[in-house]
């Protein structure tokens, strides 16, 4: 069609501009909509961050991070959140130790061993159901099963958090294992490897980056949970490093308690705890990114 039908004295330059059309307008509208949607989602996030930093940054100091929790009536410059930070760290760590290996093994079963079998499908379905269980129900579950018999302890809290983390770890690990190409498994089988060895030495390392970052996201999520801890760990005002016995406390529990106090000192310490918690979650997220990037060169 476009072949020149008449010889021209001067060849005309091709017009490569997009002609105005509905298609072009639609494209522009969509671009604007997406920018607006992005801005809207950033507004609440921005407000949260600005508020927490504005109200919490002033109380943060080394002594705030390490001191015991003072009586609520005392002003903001007294005491700190040491026990809550210690509690959050040890309880989350213990929950991670319980949930991550279990979740990864579950995912390996579903993806590598279960196939289309009934058990694998049941586990997959159950973990989806578990994802939807409200965290306070998990707290009550552990409360009736554990806390009623063994008193408040960090361990009970760790169990409750582990229940919350488990389905997230199972599903995210499963997705990562699915991404490992079958050609790698076949390559290993062709060398005479057993199934267990193929899984441990080829499949798992190939998926490790994604699995670790999924697990860290679950950890960050669990570190911020309040409800499951309310019934299971109790509350203390001095550091309890023993996660297996005695009541404990955590940053989310303290934020909840302090926020409902009428005293400005306690409220300020609550904001400080909120900022500390955000920073801890942020550190987990960054680690997740770094780990993913570290392994990205293998998974391309």
């Amino acid at each position, binding site marked *: 069609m476009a072949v020149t039908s008449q010889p021209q004295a001067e060849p005309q330059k091709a017009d490569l501009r997009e002609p105005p059309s509905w298609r072009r307008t639609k494209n522009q509208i969509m671009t604007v909509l997406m920018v607006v949607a992005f801005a809207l989602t950033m507004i609440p996030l921005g407000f949260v961050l600005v508020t927490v930093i504005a109200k919490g940054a002033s109380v943060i100091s080394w002594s705030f991070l390490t001191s015991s929790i003072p009586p609520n009536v005392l002003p903001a410059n007294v005491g700190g959140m040491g026990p809550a930070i210690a509690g959050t760290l040890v309880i989350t760590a213990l929950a991670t130790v319980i949930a991550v290996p279990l979740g990864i093994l579950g995912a390996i079963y579903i993806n590598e061993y279960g196939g289309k079998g009934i058990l694998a499908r049941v586990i997959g379905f159950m973990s989806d159901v578990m994802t939807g269980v409200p965290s306070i129900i998990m707290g009550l579950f552990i409360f009736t099963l554990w806390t009623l018999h063994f008193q408040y302890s960090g361990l009970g809290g760790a169990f409750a958090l582990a229940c919350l983390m488990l389905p997230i770890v199972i599903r995210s690990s499963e997705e990562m294992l699915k991404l490992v190409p079958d050609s790698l498994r076949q390559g290993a089988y062709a060398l*005479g490897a057993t199934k267990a060895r193929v899984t441990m030495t080829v499949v798992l390392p190939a998926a490790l980056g994604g699995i670790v970052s999924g697990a860290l996201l679950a950890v960050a999520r669990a570190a911020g949970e309040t409800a499951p801890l309310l019934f299971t760990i109790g509350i203390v005002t001095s550091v309890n490093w023993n996660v297996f016995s005695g009541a404990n406390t955590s940053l989310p529990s303290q934020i909840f308690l302090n926020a409902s106090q009428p005293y400005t000192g306690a409220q300020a310490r609550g904001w400080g705890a909120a900022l500390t918690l955000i920073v801890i979650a942020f550190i987990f997220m960054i680690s997740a990114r770094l780990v993913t990037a570290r392994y990205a060169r293998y998974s391309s």
Partner: protein
Amino acid sequence: MEQSEQDVVAKAEQNAAKEPLIRQPAAPVGTGNVIFDVRDMAVWYGSFKAVTDVTLPIYENEITAFIGSSGSGKSTVLRAFNRMNDLVPGARVDGEMYYRGANLYGSGVSPIAVRRRIGMVFQKPNPFPKSIYDNVAYGPRINGERNKKKLDEIVEQSLRAAALWDEVKNRLKMSGLSLSGGQAQRLCIARTIAVEPDVVLMDEPASALDPISTGAIEDLMKDLKSKYTIVIVTHNMQQATRVSDRTAFFYVLTDAKSDTRTGVLVEYGSTKQIFEDPRDSRTQAYVTGRMG
């Protein structure tokens, strides 16, 4: 052009009905030992019969090529040799396959032990996401080799045998995924021969590679022939004539009634005979490029 091609195919189909399904036994060439003895073998995937009536001996220290159009069951037969079909749910092998006198599908035969003796190189290079060194050392390690010095030696020898050593000797720690397609395929060959197998099966090893890499792989196969027995599936007939001693031609039989397609072995003989003096009209149509 189109018309004549169809004629040839139609004629071949017609002749297929008159001619015996398989021309056996194949004219013997050379006096090598039979390493695989396959008799009346068929492979099923569930209720689908993928390939049937395969009877052929494979000879030691030779390169045997499987040619034929897509769906004719070449790869399926190849994968039956080291029981890779076991990994496909519902796959079943009928008939008999003997490897050095032992029934490959006999009771008590471990597919793991089979695959340690009969290695495989795949169509798409599949280096593990590990370092070049660890890729080659993977096989020896699963066989229990822990001695660092011994592993170093095996890695160097295998990479030299795969004609890759000079290109990678200074970057053994780098990921196997950083290699180009041709290099990655040679790495996979090095990985396969590092366990010192008896047989190397190759499933279209050069189909994803450029002509220069293909040439390198072909030269490599000729070198490896003195130590290993090689069976190669290829779509490239020039490749079959260049490297192989014997050629087996597979063909798809279409059953119009049940709408199923089943592969059969049509002709097996020395590569020279298959390409210069094929006895079956379908083989002739295929090797002369008029069909398939």
